[in-house]
């Protein structure tokens, strides 16, 4: 007996409710943007500058004690949070401390780190710093710029590729789905205030790749079926194509999610945010390639007969 996640021959109608799906997506996009503009993102030091210290101690952590210990150093804005992870040993208590960029300085001086360690020793004797990362405002500014350029470049490059391999309508559909995915990912990071650092940009670019992967597979089938069934309406052909590729879409999403979820649970807290972004991206990307990319392709319409020259070009009256 084979495991079948999708019945053998499906003929679900994906477009009867397409207005509803598009509506839901628009609402989510607007909510994401609102959240982004109202509470912004919880930028990590990569983008904001500052120092991030990971501490480890055998004694339980009291965030308030840590804070009062550090307050005498007059370091400005400090965020302290305890980290929990199933991989930690019983006496392994981990906290992340983030200190804002000090005015007039690039990377943190050794004295800042030294002083903080001394102050924290008063609270928790065996505390040690397992990692210290410090990024100056100069570099963090550049990192933001490079990250935005990278995302825009990636999107334009694939836009161009799809335009060449398919038709411009396909490119518009795919890119809308892509932008939708990127905005929703930024939205959830803003809404839940998960730390947004360089690795998340890598995750977003992977989502870009994955979401396209999915969209392209559906579009490839649409292109093939458009040639095969010249008489059927576009809606029919698209429904058929999505149904035909449904099994593959679900299989690939499930295997990828299986791998990602095991990484999410077991891979440690350092990359949890990164993996979360990817899981979210796979789910949203799968959804968007079916409900967004295809719906937009349906709306923009597509040239049916691929073998003959453009019909419009022939009807033009010479001046």
């Amino acid at each position, binding site marked *: 007996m*084979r*495991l*079948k*996640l999708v019945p053998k021959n499906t003929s679900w109608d994906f477009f009867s409710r397409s207005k509803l799906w598009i509506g839901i997506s628009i609402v989510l996009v607007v909510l994401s943007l609102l959240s982004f503009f109202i509470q912004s993102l919880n930028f990590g030091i990569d983008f904001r500058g500052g120092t991030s210290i*990971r501490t*480890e101690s055998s004694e339980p952590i009291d965030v308030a004690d840590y804070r009062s210990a550090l307050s005498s150093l007059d370091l400005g804005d400090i965020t302290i949070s305890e980290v929990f992870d199933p*991989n930690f040993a019983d006496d392994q208590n981990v906290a992340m401390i983030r200190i804002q960029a000090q005015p007039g300085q*690039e*990377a943190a001086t*050794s004295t800042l*780190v030294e002083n903080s360690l001394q102050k924290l020793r008063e609270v928790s004797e065996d505390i040690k*710093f*397992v*990692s210290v*990362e*410090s*990024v*100056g405002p100069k*570099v963090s500014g550049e990192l933001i710029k490079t*990250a935005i350029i*990278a995302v825009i470049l*990636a999107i334009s*490059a*694939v836009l161009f*590729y799809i335009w060449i391999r398919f038709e411009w309508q396909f490119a518009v559909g795919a890119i809308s789905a892509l932008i939708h995915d990127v905005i929703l990912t930024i939205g959830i990071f803003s809404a839940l205030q998960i730390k947004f650092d*360089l*690795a998340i940009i*890598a995750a977003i*670019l*992977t989502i*870009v*790749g*994955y979401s*396209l*992967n999915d969209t*392209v*597979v559906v579009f*490839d*089938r649409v292109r*093939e079926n458009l040639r095969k069934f010249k008489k059927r309406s576009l809606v029919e052909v698209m429904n058929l194509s999505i149904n*035909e590729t449904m*099994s593959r879409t679900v*299989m*690939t999403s499930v*295997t*990828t999610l*299986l*791998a*990602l979820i*095991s*990484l999410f*649970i*077991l*891979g*440690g807290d*350092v*990359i949890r945010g*990164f*993996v979360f972004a*990817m899981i979210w991206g796979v789910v949203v990307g799968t959804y968007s390639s079916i409900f967004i990319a295809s719906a937009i392709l349906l709306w923009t319409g597509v040239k049916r007969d691929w073998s003959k020259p453009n019909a419009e070009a022939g009807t033009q009256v010479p001046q």
Partner: protein
Amino acid sequence: MLQIALWKRLVIWFLCIGGLLLALPNAFYSRVESFNDAKLTSETAEGWPSFLPSSLVNLGLDLRGGAHLLAEVQVADVYEQRMAALWPEVRDLLRNERAKVGTIRLQKGEPNELKIKLSKPEAINDAVKLVETLAKPVSSIGSVGKLDLEVIGENSDLIVRLSEAERRATDDRTMQQALEIIRRRIDEVGTREPTIQRQGTERILIQVPGIGSASELKQLIGTTAQLTFQPVIAARVNSDSIAGSGEELLPSLENPSEFYLLDAGAVVTGEELVDAQPSFDQNGRPAVNFRFNPSGARKFGDYTAENIGNPFAIVLDNEVISAPTIQSHIPGGSGIITGSFTIEESTELAVLLRAGALPAGLLFLEERTIGPELGADSIRAGKIACVVAFGAVLIFMAASYGLFGLFANVALLLNVGLIFGLLSGIGATLTLPGIAGIVLTIGMAVDANVLIFERIREELVSAKGPARAIELGYEKAMSAILDANVTTFIAAVILFVMGSGPVRGFSITLGLGIITSVFTAIFVTRLLVVMWFERRRPKTIEV
């Protein structure tokens, strides 16, 4: 139908076996690592067969622990030094022509230029011509025929600065020198595989695995270990003495409340040192012996001959180490630095001097320290996650596609082997996001196979016989596989170009993963399916 030429089969197997052989050393990481270390120091290394490949995947700092620094070289420092050194020459030249240009006075101006006031403004053009004779051609490719100085007359002010071409040439030299000096200092400590790279025009990336912290690394590099020998104008003054133009006020190393007023133009700098050794002075106190190169020796000799009885200062990092009085002409170009050093301090100072001074200051823009425990934890967690992800995907594929699923699983295992093989082959670095990239690849690698298998299923429905269905399945799935993977690959390439550090590590595993997964899906599983089909010749197949 369903035929693969023998040579193609051989190539496919050859690539697989080659890739796995390259990956093999990583399975015995610590053994091969100690083997490689032993090979570096002696010919007789044991523990690993020498006919097997022995290159390993480099572990990134986030996995191994160590320190990372991004430093910006303050290239403009050099302009300032050049101008300070030029001043005596300009001064002497103009003084000799006093009748024509009148008296001169050095004004406070931008640090990277000399601003000289003439008492006869009408002679400014003559003065410009005079000073221009000091300019030499720029010695770098691409600026042939250009001069190194730019001399401008503004009313009664004469402004001398480095020309644009010379500044570019100087920047380049400064960077190369800084890189070389940093490399030598890190090598003196003998750590394993440090990365010292130039980034952009003015930055240097330094990564040293295994070092305790970034501040330790900074100390090692020495923010500015600049050694100069400067004439003393006034010794033992207090901190509120005012330094005129061309002079500077520096504290004493032994007694920070004691200051020296020095001529800013150095007689000789540490760049002209050829050797420095820890030693002892005649009273048995720790000291450092040094020797200059011929040009340094000449300058030092001339100066000491002319200034017997005057004090001169040995300055390290803007602190006066000592200011001995010149007893006699010192012709040989060697000398001794004494101060109240401990033996450790004199040894350290000798090392610093020997490695040479950094030509300009460093500003640290980014620093990261990752403890080895954290790296070890990440590797452990990554391994467990990989194994579980693997198991889940293998079971899922077998349950969904039966025998074909097993073929895909063989390809998947091979795939991860090949990724490691390629990573070691090209000497890439594995980072924590890189491990995530591998796990993601495990999930996505099956995609190409899934596309093919689903297609075969569909083609089976049209009932053209299993052989034809398999052939059509591969044929028709190809365009989707190609388009889907090219788009992801584009994202990986952009990440590689724009990203840095861990992100770049991720893009490498993702990109390699795409290549190997396409290879294993369209060549390896196909070969497996064809071989199985040839042996069994089934009338019907179930995918």
